[in-house]
């Protein structure tokens, strides 16, 4: 395997470069996927039927917590990648663990929020608005959940490769 040291660590082999590029294309497909879900949500947002509307349902504190957790986790994983490029293993793992905790925090608040909605009688079956809301948020939550497993597993794999 040819290793090109002039490039950042994760780009240093041909195989990795292909995989990273492929992942960018995959992200393009993900944008199309979420765009479709958002479009569905905006089409159905007034389709509340006999169920509650967003004004009744949405509460600022939980939304704020989720946003802060999520945006901070994007920042800390960026710091982790930077530490990895500098070859500082402990810092890398530290930032990754912080990211995972923030992700878990986000999911916890989201699940709490879902349980609250259901207690108020707002289920995925109540109205088209709620079907699209739960689907959009749930798809995003599923992505975060997958990341929670994927990140540690790929870290362990690269550790065993070293």
């Amino acid at each position, binding site marked *: 395997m040819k290793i090109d040291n002039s490039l950042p660590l994760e780009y240093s082999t041909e195989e990795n*470069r*292909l*995989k990273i*590029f*492929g992942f960018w*294309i*995959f992200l*393009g*497909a*993900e944008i*199309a*996927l979420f765009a*479709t*879900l958002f479009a*569905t949500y905006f*089409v*159905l947002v*007034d*389709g*509340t*039927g*006999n*169920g509650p509307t967003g004004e009744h349902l949405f509460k600022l504190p939980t939304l704020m917590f989720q946003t802060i957790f999520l945006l901070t986790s994007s920042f800390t994983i960026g710091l982790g990648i930077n530490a990895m490029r500098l070859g500082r293993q402990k810092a890398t793992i530290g930032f990754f663990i912080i990211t995972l905790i923030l992700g878990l925090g986000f999911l916890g608040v989201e699940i709490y929020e879902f349980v609250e909605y259901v207690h108020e009688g707002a289920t*995925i*079956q*109540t*109205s*088209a*608005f*709620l*079907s*699209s809301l739960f*689907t959009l948020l749930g798809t995003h939550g599923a992505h975060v959940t997958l990341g929670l497993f994927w990140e540690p597993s790929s870290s362990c794999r690269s550790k065993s490769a070293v």
Partner: protein
Amino acid sequence: MDYFDRFAVPHPSPAIYASMVAIGLTMIAVVAGITYFKKWGYLWREWLTTVDHKRIGIMYILAALLMLFRGGVDALMMRAQTAIPDNGLLDGQHYNEVFTTHGVVMILFMAMPFIIGLMNIVTPLQIGARDVAFPRLNAVSFWLFFMGAMLFNISFVVGGSPDAGWTSYFPLASNDFSESVGSNYYAIAIQIAGIGTLLTGINFIVTILKMRAPGMNLMKMPMFTWSILITNFIIVFAFPVLTVALALMTMDRLFGTQFFTMANGGSDMLWANLFWVWGHPEVYIVILPAFGIYSEIISTFARRNLYGYNSMVISMVAISTLSFIVWAHHFYTMGHGAMVNGIFSITTMAIAVPTGVKIFNWLFTLWKGKIVFTVPMLYSLAFIPIFTLGGVTGVMLAMASADYQYHNTMFLVAHFHYVLIPGTVFAVLAGFTYWWPKMFGFMLSEKIGKWSFWFITIGFNVTFFPMFITGLDGQARRMYTYSESTGYGPLNMLSFVGAIGLAIGFALIVYNIYWSTRYASRNISNDPWDARSLEWATHTPIPEYNFAIVPTVDSTEAFWDAKKKALNYLAVK
């Protein structure tokens, strides 16, 4: 038991029981045959677990041919049923299932995999690569497609096939109006196959953008590779929409969500929009690679460089962009207002412009060429006038105000068969014949091939041209019968006769494969057609690594120019 009752065939008939027995016997025969000839190990090692793009491509094509015959039998049943007025061969429910599965099988499990099969075999060779970027992912793509196709097909005998049309419009496809599990098969089987296709899209974009031979910049790529690159971009941006649409459909049917319902705020039109936001680009996913195949074949057998390389590329990019902004023309009559209909009318008609550019480019390539009438060339030459007829009737349908007359008639059926059969089916048959010697090391018989070409071309026109007339006279599509007083009888009988001609043509293709496998000469060169692109530069049969030495490219027709300069690509330079 309630749960299992849902998988009972809703309207059992002797034909379905006979099919169950036939499927069972065939499976036993296949397993027994493989065991008797001790081929399990070979099958497992060389094919089922392969990650070689050439073998995956061959498996795609094999599956596509199987599905062609399944979808073809559906077509014959429909033509037989409507051949005479008040026919009782199929009942209404059975007819609904047959036209639904015909559409799904032909588009998703025949045209797509046939195209993806050729793409798998040819693209890495044309760009001088040793495999695709992610060979294992490529195998995953194939097996996802294959399992999706098999799941869809099993619905025929377990639980009943989907019956809401290949477009599966709501509210018809909701639990209220489609109680059987058929539409669940639709949602889940297509989902599985669709994810496989999406992965193919990612794989080939990376392959083409990152693994080209040295010197082959984008504007030196062969036209087929260009068409595949653009197609895969369409796949990556269109298939996620289908993924979402099918997921919402699944949730509506299984989990009681309200996306496409008539009450509680749902919107049945949302389904039509989501479906066609994917569905119209899908049409170009199967047609652009066909344009690529024709470009290769026409320049090879006219012995001329492709006319207007740059305009070919630009028009394909234009078509791919337009393909995303025309979807509402599939349901003008659903009532989204004059303004929306007007805009979509204009975007739809605009597609005729880049398509016309391509037609003229092919004609100019033929101009003053030394044309060789081989089987692939015959398909390509027949494509041009027949496809133009399909395109012109498409412009008729594109006019929203006139469409109220044509909508849901046999005129529409005739139109899209006039586009898709010469556009895609002729192309895959031409490509299949053209690249066959590269895949298997011998040529298919030209004589039998020409017989099947004439049967297919004449049979096609006899089948579908009468539908333009009955459609303008008001014969509705998807109706399982009609009364004698309508006067549709004779032309429908003519369609049935044409369908038999088509069936003979396809049977002859199978016979050709059998005959040529047994008797054709194995003594052919690496380049039997005197062709132009890099796949013909390597050995036949192709070694697993494709090229011993990665070729260097300095023109759009690299191999042809090298031949003219008497260079040998296989030798060390």
